[in-house]
């Protein structure tokens, strides 16, 4: 164990603080995955990548900062940005999920064309996995990709596709080998959303915002070299991406910031004149969550240490998505409880109308969105299947009963 704050870290911390002090006003408000970056955000992202506060460990040749992975550096940067309440760069499926996937299994040409523009926020990606008949049972994907000469011709439908309404590119899971068994018949393609034959229809979610979509494909021609790995390798690539998605969804850095925001809320919210922070039953809920957040924060440092050494953390890694999303939901749940009746005025603004949500609306939106994160990326039940089977070595699920229980 070596968490000593050596000169190197103090220097970095001072650098980050000075940077934030200097640029605080230029920084956009912290935004999540739910909005297309505007010009201000793109400029901010460019600055962060240049300083190494975003895409820090991405090799220089692909446009990153090229630093060695270092848990403490990552933690210092995350903490300083989170303390200042400003955006630590763009959070997107492209940056968190596709880029590490390409670094792990992409070709040199794919890395060169996509990583740089993605980390700079110039290409926004969406994830074309789920279909009406393939949710938890992702390997049941039916969208077809038929190789005709130099192109895969794609036909079918995706659903719940986050950010497809503004994304530039998609990473798509489709069936290219219909004669092979379920898991071996899939391929992973990269395609421009401008390709003719793509129809995106937004779906309004319970948060009142249109954050995800249905996407229909009619004879969409994707150049054959835009496949990641080979034909029939789609399941392996999709799982590589899911591994990074689940780490991202369980990321602990944002949670500590939430604990402190909720503490501030408890200091200003009163019932019959008494501050909530002074009532033991309220305070205890918060301190209890703080303990859980600390556990996940140090757990993440432990995982990053192992990742830097090239050790596959196994069970330790498999629990992160379940732990983080369930905890995040409880945290935002506490925040909306603190607001109580005074926070029930709900006035959400859509991504496109440019308005900003008031704080109570934002917490209610986060709380609902956190429930979405429990469902998306492999639901909590699916995580438990994976943890018990792959992590604890318990028997795999028996083959499904194919009959629906209610007949129409």
């Amino acid at each position, binding site marked *: 164990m070596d*968490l000593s704050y050596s000169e190197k870290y103090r220097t970095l911390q001072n650098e980050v603080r000075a940077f934030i002090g200097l640029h605080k006003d230029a920084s956009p408000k912290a935004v999540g995955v739910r909005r297309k970056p505007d010009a201000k955000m793109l400029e901010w992202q460019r600055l962060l990548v240049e300083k190494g506060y975003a895409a820090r460990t991405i090799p220089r040749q692909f446009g990153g900062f090229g630093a060695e992975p270092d848990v403490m*550096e990552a933690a210092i940067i995350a903490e300083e940005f989170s303390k200042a309440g400003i955006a630590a760069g763009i959070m997107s499926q492209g940056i968190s999920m596709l880029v590490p996937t390409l670094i792990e299994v992409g070709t040199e040409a794919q890395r060169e064309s996509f990583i740089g523009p993605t980390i700079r926020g110039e290409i926004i990606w969406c994830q074309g996995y789920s279909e009406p008949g393939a949710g938890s049972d992702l390997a049941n994907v039916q969208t077809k990709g038929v190789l005709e000469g130099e192109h895969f011709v794609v036909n079918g439908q995706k659903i719940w596709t986050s950010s497809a309404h503004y994304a530039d590119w998609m990473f798509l899971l489709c069936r290219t080998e219909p004669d092979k068994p379920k898991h071996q018949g899939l391929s992973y393609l990269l395609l421009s959303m401008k390709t003719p034959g793509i129809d995106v229809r937004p779906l309004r979610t319970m948060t009142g915002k249109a954050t995800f979509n249905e996407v229909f494909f009619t004879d969409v021609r994707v150049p054959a070299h835009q496949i990641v790995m080979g034909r029939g390798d789609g399941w392996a690539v999709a799982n590589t991406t899911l591994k990074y998605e689940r780490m991202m969804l369980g990321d602990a850095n944002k949670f500590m910031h939430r604990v402190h925001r909720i503490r501030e809320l408890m200091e200003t919210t009163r019932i019959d004149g008494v501050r909530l922070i002074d009532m033991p039953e309220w305070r*205890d809920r918060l*301190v209890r969550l703080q303990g859980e957040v600390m*556990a996940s924060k140090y757990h993440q440092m432990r995982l990053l240490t192992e990742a830097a050494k090239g050790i596959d953390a196994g069970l330790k890694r498999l629990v992160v998505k379940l732990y983080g999303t369930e905890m995040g939901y409880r945290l935002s749940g506490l925040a909306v409880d603190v607001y109580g009746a005074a926070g029930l005025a709900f006035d959400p603004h859509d991504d496109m109308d440019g308005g900003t949500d008031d704080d109570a609306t934002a917490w209610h939106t986060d709380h609902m969105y956190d429930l979405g994160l429990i469902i998306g990326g492999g639901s909590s039940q699916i995580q438990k299947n994976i*943890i*018990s*089977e792959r992590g604890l070595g*318990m028997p795999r699920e028996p083959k499904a009963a194919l009959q629906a229980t209610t007949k129409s």
Partner: protein
Amino acid sequence: MEFALTEEQRLLDESLRGYLARELTLDKLKTLANEAGGFAKSHWQALADLGIAGLMVPEEHGGAGLGLLDAAVAAEALGYAAAPVAFVGAAVMAPLAVSLMANASQQSEWFPKIASGEMRIAVAFAGGSGQTGTADVRLDGLKLSGRVDGVLDVAGATHVLTILPDGRAALVAVDTSGVEATVKPTLDRTRPLADVVFSGAQTHVLDASNDPAGAARRVRDAGRVMLAADTLGASQAMLDKAVAYAGERVQFGRVIASFQAVKHMAAEMATDLEPCRALVWFAAHAHDAIPEEAHVSACHAKAHLAEVGRLIQTKATEMHGGMGFTELMGLELWYKRISLDRHTLGGPERCRHEAAVAQGWVKG
């Protein structure tokens, strides 16, 4: 920068676990718990010979001079085995108190005996432990009077070290006149608690610290981290036993481990438990190296492990069905171990209150 155990710590863990797996069979554990009242001299001496007793004693006094993170590794291994050993008091809090509070001549007299296992010191808090029960003691000159209930590790102890409210400490030999230590039948039979009554007992006073209140808190916090680490080990043992049992027990023509409801219980346990290890390590490391975070993280580790321990003691027992409710498999020994860890030196509510106070969220 690295968040991981060192090679030496991994070796300590391996050798201790190896010894415990070989020597402390379930039959032997049951005998020690049921008949020896939680203490067997031979067992203690063997662990002392392995270096457990002197883990925290400085090297120049015959110990290993290790830190609280090393001790946490040992505590997890001992919890995993539900080992009947006076570790938290005799091997951690006592040598730490001697380091922080005793003068040089007391240290050179006591440290070597602690390291050899000859001197086994139970630590009693006359207030400020955070636990329920009587704790009312006064020191007149060198004479100690009063009563402390629910003291850890008194079975087999040669001495009791009482930490006074003002942060000084008083050491008495158990066989001195004016000391009456009654080891009680206790829920956790591997580590029975005792009520200690002093009536004018002759003491050695430890008053060399220039921050006595801080020293007392440090000793107590170290104890809390050890109890958290013990729960970590005991919970891991219960989870492992539950998964193994589910892989053998057949109902409806299948092993019960193939039922999703059972798998999900196991997954929930593993998910809550895995991150606990990092929290315990951090709290122990903070004690050694990051003083400004030591107190709050000790409170959090103690509280959080108590909650996760409660979940695991419950679900792991449930997964064993009726068998889990019996004494046959010895599962109850781990269940009760987790309960004792929870309630001694402050339950989770108390520890969380202290964490809030220490962070300035509310007045003490």
